[in-house]
């Protein structure tokens, strides 16, 4: 198969970038999207040009590193099932023009070409996305039975891979789906209750400080999420945040 590519090239954080045209030739239909880029890069290297920089690692849809916006859709999810690395070229038409851009958001500074810095998501976790627990001091794992439906819903939320597609898809560049998934995972479980208020207040405030926008119910995040995180967790976060804010004013926060 052959494709016309329009790829965002940008040298470093401060430079200005532009879309550059490339031809991808003789691409096997069984190749993945990233393998198509590998082939294009091999060709660029052979011509003495600098290959296109893009983030990727596990190439099996779980590490969350790959982060391409394909024809305007993060992970190209209108044709794939999950992350960019799980998108295969047979989903495209021969001769098609494909535009490839990074995950764009003010809070994700560009590093080079298609690679961005998503350190803001780590800092949100630092602000409360954990359960404080000292290694070695845990009670027996079965000492605390957890109803299966609660454990299952917590697992649905915990499935988030932290890729940031939700942010890239949102017209407001909101990270609410990411934040709500982690908050829901930990807040639902009895182990997470003691720090519930501190968690939601800390994470939401950090999200604001990083420059992510607010949620105004576009649901674009849910549509592109490779881990199928439902937007209903955002409602849960809003409720928990409101309750924590009220308790905070009365100094009764958990």
């Amino acid at each position, binding site marked *: 198969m052959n494709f016309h590519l329009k790829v965002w090239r940008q040298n470093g954080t401060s430079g200005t970038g532009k879309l550059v045209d490339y031809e991808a030739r003789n691409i096997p239909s069984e190749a993945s999207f990233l393998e198509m880029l590998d082939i294009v890069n091999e060709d660029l290297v052979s011509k003495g040009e600098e290959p296109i920089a893009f983030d990727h690692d596990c*190439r099996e849809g779980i590490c969350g590193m790959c982060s391409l916006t394909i024809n305007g859709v993060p992970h190209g999810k209108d044709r794939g099932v999950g992350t960019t690395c799980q998108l295969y070229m047979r989903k495209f038409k021969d001769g098609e023009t494909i535009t490839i851009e990074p995950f764009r958001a003010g809070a994700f500074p560009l590093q080079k070409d298609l690679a961005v810095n998503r350190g803001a998501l780590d800092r949100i976790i630092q602000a409360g996305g954990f359960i404080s627990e000292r290694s070695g001091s845990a009670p027996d794992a079965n000492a605390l039975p957890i109803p299966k439906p609660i454990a299952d819903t917590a697992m649905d939320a915990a499935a988030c891979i932290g890729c940031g597609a939700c942010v890239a898809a949102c017209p407001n560049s909101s990270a609410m789906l990411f934040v709500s998934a982690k908050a829901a995972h930990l807040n639902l479980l009895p182990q997470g209750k003691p720090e519930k208020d501190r968690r939601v207040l800390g994470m939401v405030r950090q999200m604001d400080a990083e420059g992510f926008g607010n949620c105004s119910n576009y649901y674009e995040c849910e549509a592109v999420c490779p881990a199928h995180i439902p937007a209903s967790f955002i409602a849960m976060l809003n409720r928990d945040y409101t309750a924590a804010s009220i308790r905070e004013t009365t100094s009764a926060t958990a």
Partner: protein
Amino acid sequence: MTLDSKIPAGPLDRKWTTFKNNAKLIAPNNKRKFDIIIVGSGLAGASAAATLGEQGFNIKCFCYQDSPRRAHSIAAQGGINAAKNYQNDGDSVYRLFYDTIKGGDFRSREANVYRLAEVSAAIIDQCVAQGVPFAREYGGLLANRSFGGAQVSRTFYARGQTGQQLLLGAYQALQAQIARGSVKMFPRTEMLDLVIVDGHAKGIVVRDMVTGEISTHAGDAVLLCTGGYGNAFYLSTNAKGCNVTATYRAYKRGALFANPCYTQIHPTCIPVSGNYQSKLTLMSESLRNDGRVWVPKRREDCGKPPHEIPEEDRDYYLERKYPSYGNLAPRDISSRSAKEACDDGRGVGPGGRGVYLDFADAIKRLGLSTIQERYGNLFEMYENITGENAYERPMRIYPAVHYTMGGLWVDYHLSSNIPGLHVLGEANFSDHGANRLGASALMQGLADGYFVIPYTIGEYLSTQFGKKVDPHHPAFEATKKDVLERTRKLLSVQGTRSVDSFHRELGLLLWDKCGMARDKAGLTEALEKIPQLREEFWKNVRVPGSGDSFNQSLEMAGRVADFLEFGELMCLDALTREESCGGHFRTEYQTPDGEALRNDELFAHVAAWKYEGEGKPPTLIKEPLVYETVKPATRSYK
């Protein structure tokens, strides 16, 4: 040089307790005086960084990914073993220990494996307290599943994403420590060398992968948690970035590399479909619970669609050869049998490198909906990658490189032979012998990080009071200069071949000669060809771009240069080990019916290799494996 494994005296089940009772402690007010460098942020690295940071040490943690949450531990699917005996089915610490040491074909240390089994239960407690959402029963208690190589159900799991959930637990604990200020995290930073000061590991040289800046970091101890070397084969189930550089650089600075020939080939992966392919995808081993593995009996049938091959013309070779275990034979045996069938010309699919995994009988027996419920996500994944519907036609699978049991040599304290250098998780050699059982890698990574190193690091640190290394010691500048020179060399070749083309060629050679089956002739040939390929690399590789910027070609070039040296060590170890054991199958050493033939008299030892300098053969140092409690037996799965 003799190796002291520092195994405590006394009965096997008292060794770890004895050690802990006598371990050297570092008082809380002294902990903050020690700086510890941790390289890698997978299960071993993140759990060690979080635990040591929480105890009060100053930690610097490094990873090459953009976030510590992306380390490849995240991709583990199946589960984590622990001797909890929650199922009341006869499990015990001893049984987990025995299954693991038998699974490793009696090529691991008794004391280390016993300790692993001993701390396994605490790992589950720890993870649940962190909020890891393990699968549960309706009563609210934890669920278990069974796994290969065991007769009890001791595997804890979180859907097919156990590695992800365990890593996120450790990652979150790490983030909490970063927020507290006890851990400083360096993402997108790759370790390129180890700094040795007066014989002790006292620092590392790293490259900032965004700016290209090379810098040095000093510490009182260095912990390598950098995973395995499966990507030496180019195609593997590892992440693209996984590499041997950290451990190989340490080897070149004097750390011993143990058992590099022990590699695990996983039987159920999606076959290679073309030469553009960048990695192989694992399909969970659980599929073998219901799928039947077969190839056509006759070579000429291989091109036919599978439904046109009648029952009597199919060879269900695992059921035929191993009637009692059948399709559930262990990983090494299943992998080798698939290779034999394909070598015999009876493989299916493109290139003839595949066997069928057929669910037709299971669908008939259990109904389509049950199969969908059990394996739906895997069938979906298979269809997404191959474009084939496995409910209608059998899956095609083939073995692929998955895990490496070899690694840097460590003693009972997880210390390498270089004082100060500790090695955790897949990066060390210690617990899995010649073959690892399913659901044991996660257990080992977390055991090392949460429960072993926090106790054993004191043995070294307690000798280092008042010996803080001067970060301006000439060794730092000298090592940094070596790294800069190497980078300059890689960029200055400006030849005609890409880094990737060298990596692919090396991978094919290793897969062919040092893969599922090895023999003297093939290994000798590989040992001739690898130096030639390496020579060509340094004459003809083309690395575009510059050293002082974001340059992914340069990153890969450094890693491939190390694989080109390491591959030789792997083949040398495989050639020297003249026996078959676990994942190491030498075709010359097999029983008349084709099973692995161990030689306990000559090879019941750890083969640890010492680097002797450029162009010189490494020296082999043997650590005898002494079995005080178990008696090595022949593994039989017939």
